[in-house]
């Protein structure tokens, strides 16, 4: 394949065309595909229920029979609005999670791509306009991963989605004042209207417009033929070919020295006491999740169980320590992200034992530690750390015996780690 193709977009010879057609190139990664189709499902229900909700003369989008059919499906119109709100809230949650956790890997690059309007994009739009409306033969400038039209639609969606969510929440939960709700209504309808405009073109282009056929399947398994990429999205193809699209690799950070880590942990512990009056803790997380799981199977027996009954309360998971555990998970992920560490499946073990043995010992260790936390009433973070800082006798005693047990254990099991 001629490498000057990498420089400029040139018409291809038939063999080159065949060659490119046979090769596949990755266009969308898994998360984007999942999000796209999830979004499609949500929008489908929201548009149907939404349109079915708006029936009054001044606002209606859809004809009468449509709203009739939908309200028959849902029984009472009350159900329609409840579904609309439920799906809307679900959609909002998924989007926020995606934005939070997928920021660096997915959202940031896509947004940069969408809002990076270049001369070529405008050129493409002008050309499209001339071709469709004026019927002239036109030549399209080279395009990025998303051509001008797709960028325009993506920009509309990116801007309108938060607007729709916020106004939706104001309406659904009657927030603040009726006058604000009034504005929220028309903005909500306007934003949805805008998105629907772009949507019909998007659906036509993806589904029915023959040259984009490949693009449609690209959104299902994520791959398109190189030829399609070359022809429709030359700049993207070129970047991919030159391997320029890897996100730049930042150097991984080293761990904090123990003193600095200790200070940081100390401050966190102090704030936990200052804000809530409770110290840190993680064994409670395990205990309550376990009770919740067992409770799912045999709620009555767990509820009245002499020990587990304590933890049932209103609902085992609706608790300080459980939410702290969730915070720990989020904190770890974020720490990995900031420290540019990669997510690696691994097993750490001493040289003398193999992986399987390591796993077995890990489980045995876990059982002993789990049992011990119940006897002592806490783990390192709750007894040693929190208990220690307020100088609770139990806390210090626990720590001292922990080291004793630890060194004893180390003596017998040095084989595992030496």
């Amino acid at each position, binding site marked *: 394949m001629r490498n000057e193709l990498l420089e400029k977009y040139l*018409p*291809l010879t038939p063999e080159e*065309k065949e060659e490119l057609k046979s090769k596949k190139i990755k266009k969308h990664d898994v998360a984007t595909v999942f999000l796209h189709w999830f979004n499609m499902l949500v929008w489908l229900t929201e548009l149907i229920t939404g349109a079915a*909700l*708006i*029936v*009054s*003369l*001044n*606002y209606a*989008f859809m004809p009468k029979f449509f709203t009739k059919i939908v309200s028959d499906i849902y029984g*009472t*119109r*009350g159900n329609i*609005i*409840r579904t609309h709100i439920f799906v809307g809230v679900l959609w909002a949650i998924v989007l926020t999670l995606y934005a939070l956790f997928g920021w660096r890997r997915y959202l940031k690059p896509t947004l940069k791509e969408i809002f990076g309007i270049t001369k070529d994009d405008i050129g493409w739009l002008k050309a499209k306009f001339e071709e*469709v409306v004026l019927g002239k033969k036109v030549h399209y400038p080279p395009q990025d991963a998303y051509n001008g039209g797709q960028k325009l639609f993506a920009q509309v969606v990116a801007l309108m989605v938060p607007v729709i969510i916020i106004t939706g929440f104001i*309406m*659904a939960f*009657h927030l603040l004042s*009726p*006058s604000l*709700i*009034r*504005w*929220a*209504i*028309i903005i909500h*309808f*306007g934003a949805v*209207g*805008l998105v*629907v*405009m*772009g949507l*019909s*073109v998007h*659906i*036509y282009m993806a589904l*029915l*417009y*023959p*040259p984009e*056929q*490949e693009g449609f399947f690209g959104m299902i398994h994520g791959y398109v033929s190189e030829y399609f990429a070359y*022809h429709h999205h030359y700049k993207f193809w070129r970047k991919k070919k030159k391997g320029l699209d890897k996100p730049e690799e930042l150097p991984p950070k080293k761990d904090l020295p123990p003193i600095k880590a200790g200070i940081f942990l100390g401050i966190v512990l102090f704030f936990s006491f200052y804000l809530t009056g409770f110290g840190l803790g993680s064994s409670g997380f395990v205990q309550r999740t376990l009770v919740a799981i067992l409770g799912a199977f045999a709620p009555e027996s767990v509820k009245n169980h002499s020990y587990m009954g304590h933890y049932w309360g209103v609902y085992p998971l609706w608790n300080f320590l459980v939410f702290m555990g969730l915070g720990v998970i989020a904190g770890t992920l974020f720490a990995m992200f900031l420290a540019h560490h990669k997510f690696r499946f691994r097993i750490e073990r001493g040289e003398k034992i193999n992986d399987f043995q390591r796993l077995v010992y890990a489980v045995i260790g876990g059982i002993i530690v789990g049992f011990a936390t119940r006897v002592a009433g806490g783990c390192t973070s709750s007894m040693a750390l929190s208990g220690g800082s307020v100088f609770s006798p139990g806390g210090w005693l626990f720590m001292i015996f922990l080291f004793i047990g630890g060194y004893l254990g180390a003596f017998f099991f040095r084989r595992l780690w030496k």
Partner: protein
Amino acid sequence: MAKYGMVIDLDRCVGCQACMVACKAQWQTPEDYFRTWVKHIGPVQVKDEMVFTSYVGQCNHCDNPPCVPACPTQATFKDTETGIVLVDYDLCIGCGYCVEACPYDARFINPVTKKVEKCDFCFPRLGEEDPACVKTCIVSAKVFGDLENKDSYISKKISEGNTYVIATKEINPGPNVYYKGRRSKVEAIIKTYPPKKKDTLPAKIWSNILRPFVILGAGATFIGSLVAFLFQINQGEKEGEDEE
């Protein structure tokens, strides 16, 4: 099928406000909100006659109520069997468009439930007994009944004549609450509390700018795609050849 309405005999009414209290006792409307009201007018000189009357008002359950199209989710609707304008509280999002659209100010947003509240002719009591205000009106100035059935008491009372509606040339949503009595009284009422056409800014922006924009836009793109699709069909399938 019935079309319930009410006749308020202004000649009989003495403005004692018993109806307001009976309604509040029945429906526990919050502090100073009332579904029906009595506003004293006068004594004032109308043409050459002195008038001292009271504007007894409530929702007029109009034939083409301006509040129904104003409600985006159609939470408020005119019940076909009884002709009473009701509210489906599941659908009401408390936006208050209907409150603004009502020319008679017969609606309000209940601060406790955050949803709209209005007179519904004591709908839950409909079969057994008259609405609370009709029942307690000392001088039987309020008459409630089915307008469509000719020999009902209310139809007789209306056909006796001198019956007007609070409506003007410009604003006449077809109210079903009639006011009987001397013309000067009804004129005084209309002069002091004329039915108003109120359009909120968002509603105006929506109907004049946003809605046409959305319909045109969505329509255009949809038809555009359709035309392109048809164009593409009759051009026949040119399987993926590249246009240079």
